[in-house]
């Protein structure tokens, strides 16, 4: 009986041992092997981005690997990255927020309106608007016990509609000089347009990323995010007000969306009705590409940066390489599948007891 069991478990191990030994690698089923596999998985986002960069460098040469192009990549990543940060906060707790794209469009418009009404500091109206949407998301989700997917799906629809009503479809432009045409709604703010350009946009984003890293890794709030994603029931038993905490999480995500919308306003030089459409999917994709499991409990700010950067580089690289648009979309879709496959594997490894 015992020898039967032994045979069954020993045989594959023997095979693996020879295979792995031949490759000079430790047996994957041994404790050291598991550590080794885990370490490899941990580094998949970094390996992926390196491969992607090398691939496009090889295909497009200096057109891709030029200062000019990397300046554009630095300008194209921040909005997506800040939205991915918002998503990271929510996904870590095991929920999802698909309203971030609509919220971005709405709060960018509110920021522009705020600047029209109150002058330059009026952009804060946009940040508050984004947080308000976040608080509403969190409150509906936690108090009415409607799943975050459904709650934020409803919010995605409602917020975009509110934006259409508030704006009546008209754009608000940001300009660096006074506008002569009184039919055009515009705000004069050169500093804002400058913020949307390299290098300011990069400094701003790096600053936000560092602050978020501190919050995510070093604060009680950050730890609770992961704990909530890990085992909500236990967290409830310890006397933490989980409902209130969830509202805080969505408000924090809203704040991040507010920053993203502010940067979007700066970068695109206008608040339009379509801003942020479908960006929620890119934000989720960036988080997944960063190796964060969508079921919650784990996550990394640094890897989310790598995920957003990878997504931007792939879109940029495919265009520069002259890949036809539909094929480019297929490539991006496949990339996403691979990323999620990786995160699922990771989950299995980590939860095995």
């Amino acid at each position, binding site marked *: 009986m015992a020898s039967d069991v032994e045979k069954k478990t020993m045989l594959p191990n023997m095979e693996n041992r020879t295979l792995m030994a031949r490759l000079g690698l430790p047996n994957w089923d041994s404790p050291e092997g598991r550590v080794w596999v885990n370490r490899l998985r941990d580094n998949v986002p970094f390996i992926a981005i390196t491969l992607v960069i090398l691939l496009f460098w090889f295909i497009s040469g200096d057109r891709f690997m030029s200062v000019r192009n990397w300046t554009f990549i630095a300008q194209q990543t921040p909005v997506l990255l800040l939205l991915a940060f918002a998503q990271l906060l929510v996904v870590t707790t095991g929920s999802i927020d698909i309203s971030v794209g609509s919220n971005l469009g709405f709060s960018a418009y509110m920021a522009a309106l705020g600047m029209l009404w109150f002058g330059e500091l009026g952009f804060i109206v946009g940040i508050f608007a984004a947080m308000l949407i976040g608080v509403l998301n969190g409150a509906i989700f936690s108090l009415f016990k409607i799943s975050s997917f459904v709650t934020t799906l409803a919010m995605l629809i409602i917020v975009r509609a509110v934006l259409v009503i508030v704006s009546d479809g008209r754009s608000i432009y940001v300009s660096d000089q006074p506008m002569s045409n009184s039919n055009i709604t515009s705000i004069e703010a050169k500093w804002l347009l400058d913020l949307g350009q390299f290098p300011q946009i990069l400094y701003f984003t790096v600053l936000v990323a560092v602050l978020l890293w501190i919050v995510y890794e070093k604060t*009680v709030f950050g730890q609770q995010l*992961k704990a909530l994603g890990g085992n909500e029931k236990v967290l409830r*038993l310890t006397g933490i007000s989980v409902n209130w905490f969830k509202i805080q999480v969505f408000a924090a995500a809203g704040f991040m969306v507010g920053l993203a919308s502010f940067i979007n306003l700066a970068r695109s030089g206008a608040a339009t009705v379509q801003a942020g459409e479908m960006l929620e999917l890119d934000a989720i994709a960036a988080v997944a590409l960063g190796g964060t499991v969508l079921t919650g409990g784990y996550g990394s700010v640094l890897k989310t940066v790598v995920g957003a950067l990878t997504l931007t580089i792939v879109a940029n690289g495919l265009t520069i390489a002259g890949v036809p648009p539909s094929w480019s979309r297929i490539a991006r879709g496949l990339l996403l599948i691979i990323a999620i496959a990786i995160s699922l594997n990771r989950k299995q490894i980590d939860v095995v007891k």
Partner: protein
Amino acid sequence: MNSPAKPILEVNSVSKAFGGVEALRDGSLKLSPGEVLAIVGANGAGKSTLIKIIAGVLTPDRGDISIKGKSIARQDHTVGFIRQMGVEVVYQDLAIVPNMTAPYNLFLGRVPRKFGIFVDEKKMQEKTREVLAELKVETVQSLKRPISEMSGGQQQSIAIGRAIAWGKEIVILDEPTAALGPNETQQVERVINEIRKRNTATILISHNLDQVFRLADRLVVVHQGNTSKEFMRNEVTIDELVKAITTG
């Protein structure tokens, strides 16, 4: 370790019915500091109802419990209040946040702070080493890795450690080793013996009668909703106990 004069927990003839079915008719017991009391009984005998009343999850229909000599009023009979009084339950599988570190799990809900918002990692790790040493739990894994990478026995030890680390005087262990292998069970049993030395009172619910005999000082049998019999461990044989469980 016979019961001293002053019990830390008294359960006085509590009963509970669910929709006309009496799950518990008359549950009574006393518990002293430093004592390990095992509650045994067949499935459906009323064990878990009794435990849930002690933990505050259920309010008894009749009867009451008193902790440290203080009777718990009906309106105070809640999980939160009873926890404050020093009662902690360690469940078979609910007690751990698997993706977090051992120190975090030990400090769950009480994470020490620096400057109001930051986690005091150093303090958490020191205290964790202290508790692990006290419970004689050896770990090879880094305290910075998720607790799910530890063995089941180590995980359960941390859960028990959390209960006692914060001065809980009564720890209820609900099937603490049901999900564990033999070696890990041994480890948890060692921890239970260690907490006895700290003068913490323990209630153990277990289906494993060998384990009950190894650990408990005293045994209470629940049969058809009544705490029908009580034995000192050294005054009863397994056969007598089995008879008591099956026939009352």
